[in-house]
């Protein structure tokens, strides 16, 4: 009996270890954030882009309206690619697009808007990137679909036509 316990437990332990490592192999090593988790939007104070006046987040986002918050920067190349899509989205919909200018030089940002157009209803600035952290953002560009002060969906990286179609479907 004693002789049987030893090999038996060794086999079981190796079995458990094999199972855990095998499961670990199947898991994706690339972190994919949860983009569908509904979260309340954060409360923050910031400055308006053009006037430089202090604004509170509560005065930007109203209840019962759909907003698309877009984090952008003049130094960000993918932002340039998605910008025409934002302009179209603004023309076609009742959607309010809010811009968050991320760690940017204001002159460059103004030139960016002059060159490519301004799809934003309002823009506020995030000079040191801390407001983006409040939003749980990773970098630029990133977009958040907001309704009733809740984040409905998060788009990490530049928007493309497929995602714009999805947004159009969601806000209908």
């Amino acid at each position: 009996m004693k002789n049987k316990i030893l090999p038996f437990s060794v086999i079981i332990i190796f079995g458990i270890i094999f199972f855990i490592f095998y499961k670990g192999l199947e898991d994706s090593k690339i972190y994919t954030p949860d983009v569908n988790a509904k979260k309340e939007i954060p409360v923050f104070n910031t400055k308006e882009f053009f006037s430089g006046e202090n604004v509170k987040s509560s005065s930007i986002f109203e209840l019962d309206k759909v907003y698309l918050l877009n984090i952008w920067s003049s130094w960000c190349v993918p932002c340039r690619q998605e910008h025409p899509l934002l302009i179209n989205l603004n023309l076609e919909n009742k959607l309010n697009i809010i811009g968050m200018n991320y760690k940017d030089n204001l002159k460059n940002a103004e030139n960016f808007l002059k060159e490519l157009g301004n799809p934003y209803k309002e823009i506020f600035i995030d000079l040191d990137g801390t407001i983006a952290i409040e939003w749980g953002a990773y970098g630029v560009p990133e977009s958040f679909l907001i309704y009733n002060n809740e984040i409905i969906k998060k788009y990490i990286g530049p928007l493309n036509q497929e995602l714009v179609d999805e947004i159009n479907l969601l806000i209908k």
Partner: protein
Amino acid sequence: MKYLKFFLIVIILFPLSNINAEENDIRNKITKNLRCLICQGQSVYDSDSEFANSLKIVVDKKLHEGLSEDQIYEYFKTKYGEWILYDPGLNKNTYILWLLPILIFLIGGAIIYKSFIVKK
């Protein structure tokens, strides 16, 4: 008089530098336990990416607001999820990780006990 002034300055500045050092220690400890999410494999402390730099500023701000280390971890967990912490707590995804070593230790101990000590 000159020396007195000098000593006064040293005495006043010395404890200040100590406070700063303590704050730096806790800041470094926290940022070393935060994963830089856009540069995987690096902690926020090691990274110089835009994301990591902003995170460092937020850690500083939270420390100044008087939040404890655990409260700061909790804050980042609600923003980015458990993955941002290098040292995850015990939950349904990590219990095997925490309990397996204890289990192996106990089973191994039992085997050793049975086969060597009981034999005698």
